[in-house]
């Protein structure tokens, strides 16, 4: 059993600060961490390693600082970590990212029976790369997996949560699942794991190693362009109600709620 986990490094939002003038997030100087949702994907892989002696490869694309993040996945128990890093990859949208990752899997002959990824990354919040990656490799896909039920010889059974139902699917491997937090409770790294990871190497490949052409990569290879970034409603003038005015404020709130309720479907 070979498992491939897709991971992304994101800014550590626990320590994020907001620029008081623009109201935007200050990204500089933020530590990079593994996308918190990817930890649930990795944890599921680690559980399968314990129960089914699975071999785990973690694959990521990102700046060189991602190496530290991938090292942490080795400390947790991943067997192999691969980083795709090149200035030519910078500015990739979801198509270019998925393309680069899927090409790397082909070119590096990365073997897998099951690919696991998190629902989305906490920074971009698109949740598109897992599906696009899978389709580029013609892999079956189950999204929004809330529970891993079982692993049989050549198939898995998983529960998927959608708007109106819990669906249980049996999927022939190889396949990709994107998982919600409820699939696992991530473990913490141990000291011995950290020590052990120091002797392991994160494999790093650039565009040339993968034989990829710049036209398909990074910003150049990305179909989408950000044309405008703007702030909305920077500051609000808060009308404060307290003490004897409180009741007036409550009436005001009730008025607003009555105005907007009912326009909503259940």
């Amino acid at each position, binding site marked *: 059993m070979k498992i491939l986990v897709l991971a992304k490094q994101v800014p550590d939002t626990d320590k994020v600060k907001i620029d008081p003038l623009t109201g935007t997030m200050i990204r500089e100087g933020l530590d990079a961490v593994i996308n918190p949702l990817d930890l649930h994907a990795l944890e599921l892989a680690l559980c399968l390693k314990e129960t089914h002696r699975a071999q785990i490869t973690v694959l990521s694309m990102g700046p060189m600082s991602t190496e530290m993040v991938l090292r942490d996945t080795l400390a947790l128990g991943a067997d192999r970590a691969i980083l795709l890093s090149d200035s030519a990859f910078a500015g990739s949208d979801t198509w270019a990212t998925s393309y680069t990752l899927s090409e790397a899997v082909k070119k590096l002959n990365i073997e897998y029976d099951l690919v696991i990824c998190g629902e989305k990354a906490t920074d971009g*919040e698109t949740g598109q790369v897992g*599906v696009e990656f899978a389709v580029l490799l013609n892999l079956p896909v189950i999204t929004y997996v809330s529970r891993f039920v079982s692993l049989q010889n050549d198939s898995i059974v998983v529960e998927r949560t959608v708007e109106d139902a819990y669906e249980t699917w049996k999927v022939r491997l190889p396949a990709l699942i994107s998982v919600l937090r409820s699939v696992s409770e991530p473990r913490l790294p141990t000291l011995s794991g950290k020590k052990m990871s120091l002797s392991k190497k994160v494999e790093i490949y650039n565009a040339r190693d993968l034989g990829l052409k710049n036209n398909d990569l990074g910003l150049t290879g990305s179909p*989408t362009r950000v044309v405008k970034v703007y702030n909305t*409603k920077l500051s609000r003038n808060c009308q404060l109600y307290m003490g004897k005015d409180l009741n007036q404020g*409550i009436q005001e709130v009730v008025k607003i709620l009555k105005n907007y309720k009912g326009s909503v479907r259940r």
Partner: protein
Amino acid sequence: MIGVVNNQIDKNTLELLGKANQMAVKIQTQVCLFIIGSKELKVDHVKDYADLTVLMLSENFGRFSLYPFLINLEKAILKYRPSILLSPATTFGRTIMPALAARLRTGLTADCTDLDVDDKGNLLQTRPAIGGNVMATIITPNHRPQMATVRPRSFSVQPEKREGRVRIEEITELEDSCELIKIEKREPSAQIDQAQIVVSVGKGLRRKENTQIAEKLAQLVSGAVGATRSVVDAKWFSHDHQVGLSGKTVKPKVYIAAGISGAVQHIAGMQTSEIVIAINKDRYAPIFKVADIGLVADAYSTLEQIVKILEDESDA
């Protein structure tokens, strides 16, 4: 042609058709609705919202499975060649659209909250960007179709306006490596990123039992309950209720922050809401800086009073 894709005929479909019609007038094109789903779907009441409705119905399409849907949709998209393709940001849209984008080698913008077209026919796709009150507008200049998933309730339903044609496409059946073996219906709960009114609670509610008042209020106004990270960590609510950087970014019409002090991580997830109402005992709490209306009071008893007024009035 502007295309709208869905696997059911619901309010999301009508909202997207409303916006598609507005944009179609602007660039003088037609609107095409692609419906792929169960044989039971009836389109009579929606067909006049589009110039053309393309139906791909099968008894095997009752529940969504990626490849059977993907292969048939892709065929229809290549046949009708819409220059813009929209789908709701539901579990269906968020799965089928990236798959289609990968096959068609085109761009896709997730979770848009606003759309427009410029005079060159570029789809202007606007979505909340990382961390809070920043919005980003994205275009897909050289690839077609230009694809976007759109958050439910971003647009209003517009009146129908024409006699729409309906065309039925033949279905290609294929062997699926995914097999549905069990289905358990669940109460469709209001998702916090889809509700028009969100009532969020923080540690200021003091006890888990006290959060029932927020659920009651949310129920009365057909809204959803949100939560801060600290109360999710305390297991008062499951993670899908969490608003903020490590949870969801929400943009409702009305956001009520009850007993929430306003950590930057939380504020980043709610500050694009239209009206923000904050309830907190501490008048210097940072949440008031991003609020339109601030009630300096105990969160629980204030919610209780609001609920009481709304209940009394609905009884009357």
